[in-house]
């Protein structure tokens, strides 16, 4: 199981899912219509490291985080 967290304005509690890599996470999240509109503008972190590719293996207990557009200050 991996844990998916949705930050800031997405306003959605964390999910658990079975996924061997980020591609599987993407496929699963795309099924959720509400979420789909966020996917196009969210960056992704695996275990708090931002990633630039879906080609990333996941293991039990990994955390995948979705980060919508930011504006600090």
């Amino acid at each position, binding site marked *: 199981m991996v844990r998916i967290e949705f930050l*800031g304005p997405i306003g959605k509690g964390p999910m658990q899912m079975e996924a061997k890599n*980020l591609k599987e996470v993407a496929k699963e999240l*795309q099924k959720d219509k509400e979420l789909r509109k966020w*996917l196009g*503008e969210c*960056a992704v972190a695996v275990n708090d490291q931002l990633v630039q590719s879906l080609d990333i293996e996941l293991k039990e207990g990994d955390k995948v985080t979705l980060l919508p*557009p930011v504006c600090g*200050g």
Partner: protein
Amino acid sequence: MLELYPGQLDVDKIFSRWRKWGEDKNYGAFITFVGTVRAEDKIEALSFDVYEPILAKWFEEWQERAQKRGAHLMMAHSIGNVPVHTSSYMAAVFSPKRRVALELIDEFVEDFKANAPIWKYDVIAGERRYARERSQKLKGSGLLLDGDQ
């Protein structure tokens, strides 16, 4: 050092503490940036969500970059509501000489705006509205929809 506070920053207190920290370290230049909530479009406050784990990593990378130039960075940010005309963000650079300090404060504040994992909301009539049109996509955004081409 990275400091997060609930609500508005006590700017004078933070400034004074940072200044005292640098006092005996032989820095010749100390620059601070203070960001204050402007009254516009009927907002009564801004509100912030902060994701600390990634913010802390981002800050540590900047601290290492600063140290290579003989400088040191400080930062403070608010979590939650910050009323109009009070401050939500402070950044500071100490360095032996002024050029490094002047360049670093600019680079650091700009990169903060583009990359710090913080989300801003306008508070209007007590309601929190995501400031989407002022927000910037992080690098790699859209990955889960488009894949990586």
